[in-house]
């Protein structure tokens, strides 16, 4: 079903079924042979051109067809994504998955209008046919293709030691076995544990009709551990994961240990959990993945496509105060090895740190090519897409709040009766009304300035602009989320991350029960 609004949700790729979402994968011993010799970051533009079987002349010929009906801009997005996963269930690594996805997407613009097609066969004939299809968005005139393509160099925000193509399956298997042993050794109440180790390597090359060609190598990995425990006939389940644009060196003995310990701790702590009272209360958000608040409360609403259409609750608030002076919120593509970082966006634009809110004032939307042209501003590097099958849209990268003037202890001590929210599974927002939610998997009650009973499974719902105004304290302990977050919008998922210092919201509705 095509439900753009209901699909504008934020979900954790590993929360269920993992692999259905993260898609298959593997890597046999000799897989690297499938590639031309250089791999990973060593690949140069000429290697990408060779890899995709094209050259400057053939790209320009396709662009000529794309622009033959009067389109004023076009781009070609070449992609080769290879992903692999191994899974452990019932104490054995007994399943593996792999996926190869290969193709080129051709987009033609006429003002704000988009024509799009893709082909999985990168042959001159198939590309020309796709270009002809995409060209149909326009119906009069003819534009010229670029006279030449100039390579645009990118920074390197995600260096890794070993490309995933060089990591064979037998090197990955022991990681899950070790985590499994530690999970069961940790607590006798654990009865089941399931885990996944996924990696993905994506090679992209973008060529634009304004004469730019750019390529990028994008690694990604995740280990996710779910755990079920039983106590006095009662069962609980929870999970923990680590993800990033990293190589296998990320899974140090310390991180392997944390994956096991955190998954178990988060599960067994639920046995004592209670439901909070229903209604509005003070909520303290723990530093880290609580940045989901920003993603939902403001991030989506600042995506420029919604504002161009005037359907965002933030559409009329630019350069106005929206929060206390100590609140600064950014969306950043440059954080080293973080899941939402990109060296270049999927339209070939440079990425950056974009200030959504600076010292309490609303400052910038998140732009893709179309919206930047519409607003006559420089693109912010937020044009992203799930794959060559989709046209790009303004999307978040890593969304977080900069540190503030308060201390964590001071913030918790200031709450008489409230909720401390620690781990989250998913969220969603209605762009125009501003209603947003996030689901608290675990946290604590705060009573008289102290963390007391654990809390589980409560949804929090608020209104974006209202909640921004109600951020009354911000600590100095910014932490980034470590897990594998995936943002969904109009049916496209992209990897993102978020972060937050400890923050106090003076009033927000918590889904509890009436006592």
């Amino acid at each position, binding site marked *: 079903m095509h439900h753009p609004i209901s699909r504008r949700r934020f979900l954790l790729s590993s929360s269920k079924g993992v692999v259905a979402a993260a898609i298959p994968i593997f890597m046999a011993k000799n897989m690297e042979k499938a590639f031309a010799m250089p791999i990973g970051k060593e690949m140069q533009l000429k290697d990408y051109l060779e890899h995709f079987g094209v050259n400057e002349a053939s790209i320009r010929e396709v662009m000529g067809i794309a622009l033959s009906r009067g389109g004023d801009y076009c781009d070609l997005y070449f992609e080769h994504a290879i992903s692999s996963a191994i899974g452990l269930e019932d104490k054995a690594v007994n399943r593996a998955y792999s996926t*190869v996805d290969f193709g080129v997407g051709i987009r033609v613009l006429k003002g704000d209008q988009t024509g799009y097609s893709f082909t999985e066969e990168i042959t001159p004939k198939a590309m020309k046919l796709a270009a002809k299809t995409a060209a149909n968005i326009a119906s009069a005139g003819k534009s010229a293709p670029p006279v030449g393509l100039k390579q645009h160099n990118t920074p390197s925000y995600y260096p890794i030691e070993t490309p995933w193509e060089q990591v064979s399956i037998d090197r990955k298997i022991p990681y899950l076995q070790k985590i499994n042993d530690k999970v069961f050794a940790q607590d006798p109440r654990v009865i089941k544990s399931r885990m996944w180790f996924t990696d993905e390597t994506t090679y992209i090359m973008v060529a634009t009709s304004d004469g730019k060609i750019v390529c990028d190598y994008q690694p990604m990995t995740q280990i996710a551990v779910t755990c079920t425990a039983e106590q006095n006939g009662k069962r609980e*389940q929870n999970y923990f994961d680590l993800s990033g644009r990293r190589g296998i060196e990320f899974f140090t003995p310390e991180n392997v240990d944390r994956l096991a310990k955190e998954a178990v701790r988060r599960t067994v702590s639920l046995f004592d959990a209670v439901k909070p009272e*229903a209604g509005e209360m003070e909520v303290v958000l723990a530093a880290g993945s609580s940045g989901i608040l920003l993603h939902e409360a403001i991030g989506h609403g600042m995506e420029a496509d919604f504002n161009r259409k005037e*359907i965002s609750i933030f559409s009329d608030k630019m350069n106005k105060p929206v929060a206390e002076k100590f609140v600064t919120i950014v969306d950043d593509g440059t954080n080293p090895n973080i899941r939402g970082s990109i060296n270049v966006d999927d339209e070939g634009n440079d990425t950056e740190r974009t200030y959504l809110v600076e010292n309490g004032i609303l400052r910038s939307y998140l732009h893709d090519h179309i919206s930047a042209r519409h607003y006559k501003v420089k693109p912010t590097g937020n044009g992203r897409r799930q794959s060559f099958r989709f046209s790009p849209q303004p999307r978040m990268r890593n969304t977080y709040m900069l540190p503030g003037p308060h201390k964590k202890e001071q913030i918790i001590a200031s709450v008489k009766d409230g909720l401390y929210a620690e781990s989250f*599974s*998913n969220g*969603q927002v209605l762009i125009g009304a501003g209603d947003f939610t996030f689901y608290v998997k675990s946290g604590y009650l705060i009573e008289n300035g102290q963390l007391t009973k654990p809390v589980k499974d409560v*949804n929090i*719902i608020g209104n974006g*602009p209202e909640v921004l105004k109600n951020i009354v304290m911000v600590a100095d302990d910014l932490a980034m989320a470590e897990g594998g977050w995936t943002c969904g919008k109009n049916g496209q998922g992209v990897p993102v991350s978020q972060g937050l210092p400890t923050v106090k919201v003076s009033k927000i509705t918590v889904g509890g029960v009436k006592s």
Partner: protein
Amino acid sequence: MNRKERIEFAKWAMDRTLKCGANQAAVVISYGRDIEIEYRDKRLEKLQESTSSSMSLQVYAQNRYSAHSTNDLRKEAVEKFIENAVAMTKYLTEDPHRSLADPKYYPTGPKTDLKIRDAAYEKVESAERVKIAAAIEAAALAQSNQIISVTSGYNDSHYETVRVHSNGFTGESEGTVFSAGAEVTVKDGESGRPEDWYYASTRFYNDLPSPEILGKNAAERALRKIGQDKIESGIFDMIVENRASSRLFGILQGPMTASALQQKNSFLEGMLGKQIASEKLTVIDDPFVEAGMGSRLFDSEGIAAKRRVIIDKGVLQQYYVDNYYGKKLGMEPNGGSTTNVLFEYGTQSLEDMIKSLPKGILVNGFVGGNSNSTTGDFSFGITGLLIEDGRLVKPINEMNISGNALELWKNLVTVGNDPYPYSSWRIPSLQFSGVNFSGI
């Protein structure tokens, strides 16, 4: 590739897999064509047209299992891909429960025509698609001058799939899907811009509602949200409109799967034959509904589809058991996922239910939230309308409902007569008593 070539290709890939050392293999070749249109401000906003093909492969080698997919269908690339797939499988731990389904479960006898493919698909022309989207937009805009934005859309798709198993199964499926509708945003006071949508999806082009109805419904839904606000927390009777009610059935259905049971993540473990919901609830899984969005002759493991009663007057009759977890649990496989979910429908319409409720909340949409399949606990954000003396008195939003799945479904008091027609889950409007709402 045409149909015959796809079957030949699948068989070739299956043979390659066996030659590389697998004992068993399953290959699926899928083809799909999609056309999508977005319309806004009286012109095309987006036009997308594409065709895709892919192969997926399941490898069973010496009790070891792996699964793979690729869209690079050049023969030499597929050969290499298969070689790698089988080679890596050897590193895995043996799993005695891994094998293709027993051929006794495969379909036999004549094929039923499910009527899920519309021959008119090929005849739909570009200009017609644009005309529909334009008419939807016009109908929406005509409803009010408070409308800020309408994005209407139309899309159609056609898919064909062939599946071959090395122990004697060959199956094909083919279908079409058409959908159309709109998203509408309206002005509400100083800065509120509530939005809503109305989309329909059908197997046959002629079953789509008229553009006028689609546009009008989308606009009316958004307009009805003007002035929305949260109210005092409390325990209310709740009516859930048909298009939203699948969310609540989902919290029961997920835990009915063999995988959840075997992994001890299901609050429905040990509940076969027991009362898990009110007597008003009878649920049937019917794969043979004509033109059904979930209709099929066999499932993703080749197992023949059957009509089954899942819940009878509140008593759980069957789980959803797939081949692998069925073997692990020692249970007969019967289809690991839902097909068309039908209820035993009641006699009351949504309007009847509202009229007879002195005080309560009509929930017409869920916003985020989640549920815990191990315990049944849930908490969801909602949008809706307050009901007083049988009338809708004001729109509400920014509230949550919370509770436990078993308690909620035991408090089901009325099942409506209005199955949602645009989804494989044909769930009607439902009324529950005593639900916890949190607001102010």
